[in-house]
């Protein structure tokens, strides 16, 4: 099953790259000019994302440099420890929505220090895999659409992250034991 899914992942992009133009040709689409017409928005979109992404990443960079994230992790430790979040995994809870690279760094640390097949290692893996870098996604998506007032998008997205993390603790506990 896993091997099949991995094969699908590996083949998906190459097949689309070849299949879409082929299907277009078969349907009588002028593939090359139509491709260029659609593709010309790519640069603009990338450039449009710069201002919101700079704003968000600078705020998060400052937050990290100030030591606020470590302080938050320390403050949360006594509350989350008994609930099944080991101290080594705690920084992940705080960093995951803010920085994709930072989160992978924490996962790497946990895997090295406690082993990938330990409770902490499995929990960190599942947490990282089942949540997203929420602030980055929102900055890019809303930035590209020119939306500046997010309304309930941020709380909804952050609650989804939180639910994913709580579920990770429960599911890992049930499937593998602590």
């Amino acid at each position, binding site marked *: 099953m896993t091997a099949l*899914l991995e094969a699908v992942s590996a083949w998906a992009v190459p097949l689309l790259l070849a299949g879409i133009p082929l299907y277009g040709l078969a349907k009588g689409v002028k593939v090359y000019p139509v491709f260029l017409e659609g593709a010309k928005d790519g640069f603009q979109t990338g450039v449009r994302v710069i201002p919101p992404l700079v704003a968000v990443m600078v705020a998060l960079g400052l937050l990290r440099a100030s030591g606020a994230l470590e302080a938050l992790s320390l403050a949360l430790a006594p509350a989350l420890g008994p609930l099944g979040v080991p101290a080594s995994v705690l920084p992940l809870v705080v960093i995951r929505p803010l920085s994709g690279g930072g989160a992978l760094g924490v996962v790497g640390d946990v895997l090295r220090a406690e082993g990938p097949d330990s409770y902490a290692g499995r929990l960190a893996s599942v947490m990282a895999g089942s949540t997203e870098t929420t602030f980055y996604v929102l900055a890019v998506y809303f930035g590209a659409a020119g939306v500046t*007032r997010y309304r309930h998008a941020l709380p909804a997205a952050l609650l989804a992250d939180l639910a994913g993390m709580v579920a990770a603790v429960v599911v890992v506990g049930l499937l*593998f034991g602590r």
Partner: protein
Amino acid sequence: MGVIWTLLVVASLVVAAATGRVADLTGAAAESAGKAVTVSLGLVGIMTLWLGLMRVAEEAGLVALLARAVRPVLRRLFPEVPPDHPAMGSMIMNMAANLLGLANAATPFGVKAMQELETLNPAKGTASDAQALFCAINTASLQLIPATVIALRAGAGSRAPHEIISATLLASACGVLVAVTVSKLLARAGRSAP
């Protein structure tokens, strides 16, 4: 967003003053700003490629075909989006790419979907219910194979790097469920309040 952003920056300054790291902030700001530009420009290549292919797929009727297949689900989630609107096609491509763990392809489709949804948005510049819901679903990160994490586990010498797949799928399904529920509830609350 302005309030949250300002609060984040002010909180950083206050904490940095308390931890004696104020001197680090200037460098961190410059470094983050530079990284943001690198990331944005890094999107340009894949964005250009997929936007071009997407247009070909649209003209060939491929996107509409796909949209028709999953219409029952999406119509319930996004009742305000017309079923034949290009936003539907882009959202479907984005979700399919996310499921397969193809982050590089998912982002351009997601961006396109957000821009298409903006054309339907009566209050430009303010997130519509559909945009908020689409983003929330995206941040819940439903994927069949969490490839990056598996690679990290394999690199760390795991005996079974893949064993976390089902647990990850279950946890992110919970995330999606909460994302949809909370978005729908908050959208309704936002409408009834002035």
